[in-house]
C-alpha cells in the first residue's frame, strides 16, 4: 500500500527531475514551441513543493489534488491545465483513503490520462504528452519501471511525428524530427514515480 508520504515523495522527485532537466525541456521546446516548457514546469513544480511542504496533506488523493491545483494556477502555459488535470483527476479518483494499492493508483492514473485526452482533444500520434502517458500508464500493469521505460520510449517515438496539436502544429511538416517536450516531461513524471517506488521497495 502507498501512503501520502509516497505521493509527496513522488511530487518531490518530479520537481527535482524538472529542475535537473529544465534546460533540456526548454531546448526541446525551442524549435517547435515557444521555448518556455522547462521554465514553466520549473515554476509550477517549485510551487507544488512549497504547497505540499506547507499543507502536508494526509491522504494520497489530497496530495495529488493539491499538486494539480497548484500546477493549474502557476504554470501559465498549456502544460499547466494538462498536468493539473492529470493529477487532480487522479487524486479525485483515489478519494480520501489514507493508503491506496498499486492497482488503485493504476486505475486512477488511467482516469487521469483520460481526462488529459479529453481536455486537449489529442489522439495518439499527435506528438503530445499522450504519446508518453498512454504507453506509460498501460505498462504500469507490469511494473513502475516498465511504465517509466515505456513513457521514455513513447517520448523518443514522437521524433518522426508531425504535430497536430498546439503551437507546434502550425509548423506542419517542419515539426517532424524534433522530440516533443510535453512527452519528454511526461516521461520524467513517470520516471520519478518509478524511482520513488524502487526506493520504497529498497527501504522495506
Amino acid at each position, binding site marked *: 500500500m502507498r501512503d501520502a508520504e509516497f505521493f509527496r515523495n513522488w511530487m518531490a522527485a518530479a520537481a527535482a527531475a524538472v529542475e535537473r532537466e529544465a534546460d533540456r525541456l526548454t531546448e526541446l521546446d525551442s524549435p517547435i514551441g515557444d521555448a518556455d516548457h522547462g521554465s514553466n514546469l520549473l515554476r509550477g513544480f517549485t510551487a507544488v513543493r512549497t504547497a505540499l511542504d506547507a499543507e502536508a496533506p494526509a491522504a494520497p488523493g489530497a496530495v495529488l489534488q493539491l499538486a494539480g491545483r497548484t500546477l*493549474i494556477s502557476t504554470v*501559465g502555459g*498549456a*502544460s499547466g*491545465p494538462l498536468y*493539473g488535470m492529470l493529477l487532480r483527476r487522479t487524486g479525485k479518483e483515489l478519494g480520501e483513503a489514507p493508503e491506496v494499492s498499486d492497482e488503485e493508483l493504476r486505475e486512477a492514473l488511467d482516469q487521469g490520462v483520460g*481526462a488529459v485526452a479529453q*481536455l486537449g482533444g489529442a489522439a495518439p500520434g499527435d506528438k503530445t504528452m499522450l504519446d508518453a502517458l498512454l504507453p506509460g500508464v498501460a505498462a504500469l500493469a507490469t511494473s513502475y519501471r516498465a511504465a517509466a521505460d515505456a513513457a521514455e520510449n513513447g517520448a523518443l517515438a514522437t521524433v518522426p511525428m508531425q504535430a497536430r496539436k*498546439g*503551437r507546434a502544429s502550425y509548423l506542419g511538416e517542419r515539426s517532424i524530427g524534433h522530440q516533443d517536450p510535453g512527452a519528454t516531461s511526461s516521461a520524467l513524471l513517470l520516471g520519478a514515480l518509478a524511482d520513488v517506488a524502487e526506493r520504497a521497495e529498497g527501504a522495506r
Partner: protein
Amino acid sequence: MTGGHGDGGTQPALVGVVLVSHSGPVAESVAELARGLAAGGPVAPVAAAGGTSAGGLGTSAERIMAAAREVDRGAGVALLADLGSSVLTVKTLLLEDELPPESRLVDAPFVEGAVAAVVAASAGAPLAQVAEAAAEAYAYRKV
C-alpha cells in the same frame, strides 16, 4: 466596479464577458474595442484576463477566476479565449467548477466574437444568445 447580484432591482441582469488572451495588452485592447463598439446605451460588464500573473505571455487561472467574478451579475458569464493555454485553462476551470454558475466557454473567433458577444450582452441577450452571436462570427468570410 460595483459587484453583486441584482443591484438596483429594476434593471435586468446582463451577461458578463471575460476575454482570455495569451497577452495582457491583447485582452485589454480587445475589451476596449468591444466596449467602444457596443457603446450607445448601457454596456455589459467586460473584463480582460490576459497574460500570466507576472505580466508575461501565457495564462493565469487566478486572473480568469477574478475576472469572471468581477463581471458576474447573475445572468451568466461568457468567456472567450484565444490560443493554447487560454482555451485549456478556461476548460479546466469549468470542469473543476472554479467559475461562477452559468459560465460558458464561447466557441468564437477572439476579436470578432468579443465584439458580437459584448454587443449582444449589452442589448440584454441571455447567455445562450450571447454565445450564439459570438459563434456566428465564424461564418463571416472575409474573401
